[in-house]
């Protein structure tokens, strides 16, 4: 038996107060308040003192790249899951752009088996491909993928350029009750762009990617969502126009959800500095107006989810010409720390933040996640105040590519609990 004592338990809409939680056989068996002087009820119980800490339903990062199979030099399922545990995540959803692509039950099962056997303890809910080989030509077998454990479909990284395919994907996935996650990018508008279009790109002589490369596709997909009645989830929203389109769509009752990543509400295109490839990401870091619009979108509920778009790369991919450098930020281990700043800056309440990092992603991928008697004991314990320095070279992730190296962040996960077992404990990790 495990007892988590004296923490502020926040399960948005359900609980917010100081409670003790008893866990047995992987499930929450009791929530209450023990007498301070009384024994926990079982002398064999492990007692975790969570006073001054926040206890929340396990954080879920619904947009990560674990790179395995195929790109194990960038990340493996084991290292990615270890990074997730350290970042406070009890579950992650890896995108299908592996090699081979996760467009079949076999690959989907392989990913889940690797995650189970790697010992990191984090749950992995794979995202299957929208199209076979991410090639945009034929639908992947959604039924098979769902049976194997896929929780959504996406061609992330390869936008679906064919509107008819996107329509059918939304329709067909509706039959499975699963969402389609859209990487919104008009490849022709993005052209050879490598950073946000604007003054900074012009000064650096880098080809720019306009906001419209994203927003025209958000517009199309919202229209297709309305047409089909399917479930659309917009990945990594970066542009203010996209926020506005999604807000309007929600007002009209269209079933669209959206996510953004910590780098979009934290950084602007200025982070590219003098060709710093750790700030090269797709979609690109945008202007201050876009960053502010993303924060507004989070605050007013337009953006449902914070997901890191964890995109680990090796120096082979990043320590090259800016034009040639791979897109992406290794985000699992900084996501919570960066997101907690939104609470400090009064953009979100703590409950709202937990909603966007835990409850909402669980709802979108159709998994139960909460703190109540009988629930699966997936929980994250957060120290909201401890100050720490980001050290990329000590990441669990093989991807050390982060523009936040050396940043001082406030707040972090101190314990990650999956199925009642501790998979990360900061006090035992020398942190």
């Amino acid at each position, binding site marked *: 038996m495990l007892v988590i004592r004296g923490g502020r338990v926040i399960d948005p809409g359900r609980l917010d107060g100081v409670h003790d939680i008893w866990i047995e056989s992987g499930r929450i068996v009791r929530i209450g308040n023990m007498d301070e002087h009384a024994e926990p009820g079982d002398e064999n119980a492990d007692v975790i003192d969570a006073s001054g800490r926040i206890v929340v339903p396990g954080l879920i990062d619904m947009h990560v790249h674990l790179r395995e199979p195929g790109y194990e030099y960038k990340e493996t399922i084991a290292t990615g899951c270890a990074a997730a545990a350290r970042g406070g995540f009890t579950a992650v959803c890896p995108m299908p752009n592996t090699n081979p692509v996760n467009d079949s039950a076999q690959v989907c099962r392989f990913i889940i088996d690797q995650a189970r056997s790697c010992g990191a303890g984090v749950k992995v809910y794979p995202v299957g491909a929208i199209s076979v080989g991410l090639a945009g030509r034929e639908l992947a077998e959604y039924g098979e993928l769902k049976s194997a454990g896929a929780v959504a479909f996406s061609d992330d990284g390869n936008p679906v350029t064919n509107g008819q395919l996107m329509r059918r994907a939304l329709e067909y996935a509706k039959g499975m009750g699963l969402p389609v996650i859209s990487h919104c990018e008009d490849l022709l508008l993005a052209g050879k762009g490598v950073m946000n*279009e*604007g003054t900074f*790109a012009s000064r650096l002589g*880098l080809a720019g990617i306009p906001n419209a490369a994203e927003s025209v596709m958000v517009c199309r997909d919202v229209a297709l969502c309305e047409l089909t009645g399917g479930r659309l989830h917009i990945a990594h929203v970066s542009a203010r126009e996209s926020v506005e389109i999604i807000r309007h769509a929600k007002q009209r009752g269209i079933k669209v959800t959206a996510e953004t990543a910590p780098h979009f509400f934290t950084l602007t295109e200025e982070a590219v500095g003098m060709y710093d490839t750790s700030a090269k990401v797709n979609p690109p870091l945008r202007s201050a107006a876009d960053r502010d619009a993303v924060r507004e979108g989070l605050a007013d509920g337009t953006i449902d989810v914070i997901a890191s778009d964890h995109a680990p790369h090796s120096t082979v991919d990043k320590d090259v*010409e800016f034009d040639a450098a791979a897109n992406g930020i290794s985000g699992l281990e900084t996501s919570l720390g960066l997101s907690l700043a939104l609470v400090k800056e009064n953009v979100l309440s703590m409950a709202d933040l937990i909603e966007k990092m835990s409850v909402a992603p669980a709802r979108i991928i159709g998994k139960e996640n909460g703190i109540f008697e009988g629930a699966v004991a997936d929980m994250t314990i957060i120290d909201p105040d401890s100050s720490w320095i980001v050290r990329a070279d000590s990441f669990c992730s093989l991807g050390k590519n982060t523009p936040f190296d050396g940043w001082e962040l406030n707040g972090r996960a101190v314990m990650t609990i999956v199925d009642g077992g501790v998979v990360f404990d900061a006090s035992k990790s020398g942190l």
Partner: protein
Amino acid sequence: MGLSTRDVLDIASLSGEDISLILETARRMKEIFRRPVKKVPTLRGKTVVSFFHEPSTRTRVSFDLAAKRLSADLVSLSASTSSMVKGETLVDTVRNIEQMVPDVIVIRHSSAGVPHMLARHVSVPVINAGDGMHAHPSQALLDMMTVLEKKGRIDGLRLAIIGDIARSRVARSDIEGFLKMGASVVLAAPPTMIPAGVESFGVDVTYDADKAVSGADVIMMLRIQKERAASFLFPSVREYALRYGLNAERLKLAKKDVAIMHPGPINRGVEIAPDVADGKHSIILDQVENGVAVRMALFYLVMGGQWNAGD
């Protein structure tokens, strides 16, 4: 007094004093050209490695000649003669070059920012010989030198730059350099060729070439890349030549003593009419000559040289 920076990566990182020092040094270097023996022993025993990762004739020859006239030892590499064709990364190639202990590395690359990246990895001065759409500082310096020579000043002059500004490293460096030295700048191009965020550049912008030409003291015509029509930047070479090309008719709008520049190589009959390119206002060939002098000055200054009259 020397340069305030170790490297010459772009005009933005040079101060006005740096630019003046380079131009003055280049003026003195040019005197060497008129001697019977066009070579001085100043950089004897120094090694220059020039690495051209992108095709170039004029700039490459100019840097090579500059090194030779100062008696430096010169190693010239291009992407096709280096191990990069065998898959070696740029950083590895350059780290290997550095083990050969050069005193300066000259780099031309098709990707913006590569000279900056190299400068972070090596311990010797790096001179940018043109990087992607970003910067071409030695070109801007030779342009300023040529204008200074012809007009006696840069301060207060009006420079018109006509062409694909958005994709031109020459335009970027000229804008930064001429503004820094007190000139005003007007850009003329169709809107498809004006960079995003141009309003922060401190220049005037017009879509009408006639407006840019009238009132200009100096006109810089940029080379138009004909294949860019396929990117929908302009409908045809014919229409471009008519609306933005510098021909005798359009030149009538200019000041009587206007000077015409071009970074070369020129497309005769496209951005510039043959009679204008060869006409009395053209200082295009002066630019080429001054290019060698400017690059000699850069070698000399980045290798710690201080010019004094007795040298």
